């Protein structure tokens, strides 16, 4: 066994957690965007004039899919890594890297979605206004949208990861982490994407605290987690 092969296998493990999860998040976001654009055309043609951005509503559904991605990461990907000779610490480091990378990548795609939608709404001569959010008030505030979702998306995935880890470990543990997960999600929604206007100095600490809190509690759950805890 050489150090070169160890490094390669570690890099491949990183690819499986970081790159695959970025692609997974982009896949769900792109799917939501395609649906939003298709619905906008359908509503315009068959229902009536468009009144607000469909994409800003569909993003809420995309966020739930991203939460599911987090659940998948700790219930499917983590056991795969552990069973093939990786440590819980290595998984948590890669998982944190994935969380930090997914936010900006998804943020860019969401901004791109607003831009595309703006072009479509312009062609349909419909008003392009977002559903009420605290961090941005117009779909052309690209920088604010990017920052808002760069902060929000990691929290949703991290909350999913925490819930997944809790359920994987035991039902008792799951009951313990559910209130924590709900509280972290509520915090980020109030301070980043709530109905009241929020500012960057308010949003950043709340989102960072939520992600850090989520990863910290997830680490507490997984640091001694048994593989297949239900089998003996």
């Amino acid at each position: 066994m050489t150090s070169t092969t160890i490094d390669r296998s570690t890099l491949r493990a990183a690819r499986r957690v970081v790159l695959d999860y970025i692609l997974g998040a982009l896949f769900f976001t792109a799917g939501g965007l395609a649906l939003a654009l298709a619905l906008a055309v359908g509503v315009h043609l068959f229902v009536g004039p468009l009144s607000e951005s469909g994409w800003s509503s569909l993003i809420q559904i995309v966020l739930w899919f991203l939460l599911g991605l987090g659940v998948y990461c700790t219930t499917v990907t983590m056991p795969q890594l552990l069973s093939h000779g990786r440590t819980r610490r290595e998984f948590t480091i890669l998982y944190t890297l994935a969380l930090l990378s997914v936010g900006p990548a998804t943020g860019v795609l969401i901004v791109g979605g607003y831009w595309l939608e703006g072009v479509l709404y312009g062609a349909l001569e419909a008003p392009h206004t977002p559903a009420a959010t605290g961090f941005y008030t117009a779909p052309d505030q690209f920088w604010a949208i990017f920052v808002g979702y760069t902060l929000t998306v990691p929290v949703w995935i991290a909350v999913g990861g925490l819930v997944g880890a809790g359920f994987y470990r035991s039902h008792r543990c799951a009951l313990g982490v559910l209130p924590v997960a709900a509280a972290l999600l509520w915090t980020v929604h109030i301070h980043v994407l709530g109905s009241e206007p929020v500012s960057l100095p308010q949003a950043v600490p709340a989102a960072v605290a939520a992600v850090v809190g989520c990863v910290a509690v997830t680490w507490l759950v997984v640091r001694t987690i048994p593989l297949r805890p239900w089998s003996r």
Partner: protein
Amino acid sequence: MTPTITISDLHLSYGRTTALDGITLTVNGPRIHGLVGRNGSGKTSLLSVIAGFRQASAGSVELDGQPVFENATALRRLCLIRGSGDSVDHDWPTNRVRHALRLAADLRPNWDDDYAQALVDRFQLDPRQRLTELSTGQRSAVGVVLGLAARAPVTIFDESYLGMDAPSRYAFYDELLTDYMEHPRTVIVSSHLVDEVSRLLESVILLDHGRLLLHEDAEALRGRGAAITGEHGAVAEFVADRTVLRQQHLGRTTSAVVYGELGPTDRDRAAAAGLDVDAVPLQDLFVHLTAGADQ
């Protein structure tokens, strides 16, 4: 360097249930060790702790002097296979046999892709099939492929024959032996089918009720018992003061399996009485030793 696993006063509890109760054991290589014991004796629990799948409640497991749990260096050298190898079973849509091989190729530092393909052919697995569509035996075969092709210095199979038909089981034993000869390493095979795997084993670790009952060289263990066959009266006289594990009669001929070492004098006496003395199957000794622990 040949790996050495050192287990010291190992305890593992699940709530109020004690699975492992003070196991102290040293497993050296390169050898093939058999881990045997009845249902619930703690075999899977012990292997899970050795491979870092679980943390011990107390005591330690070390690989070449380094603790195993959460030790990246030690865990890279260990491979425990249970069932289909805790692989891509739930990873829909990438849950096909080829995905399981790809996962292991990505994460196992010593993975041998050519050997894995040869094993896939030998066990007649279809790389395109989903793990969820495979029979239990085929899933076990996937686990065997993952375990052998990983070429980990410590390779552990936990009842990897489950659901396999006889030809597949014998293919597994042949492959294990052949690959072990070409790439000597420490192998631990946990099994109920003691007779089937006994020809592979160089040492036997016997667990009962979470405790280590014995850890002995397989040949020495076989020498602890003998099958005495001959005329009924002569056999009865010979075994009169011995522990008889099992007796069978056919006409005037009796075959008795006795526990305890036979010295040269005993063998001469048996020969003089016209009795045949043969090696006893490990399975019989295993049944006797674990039944004894019950009593």
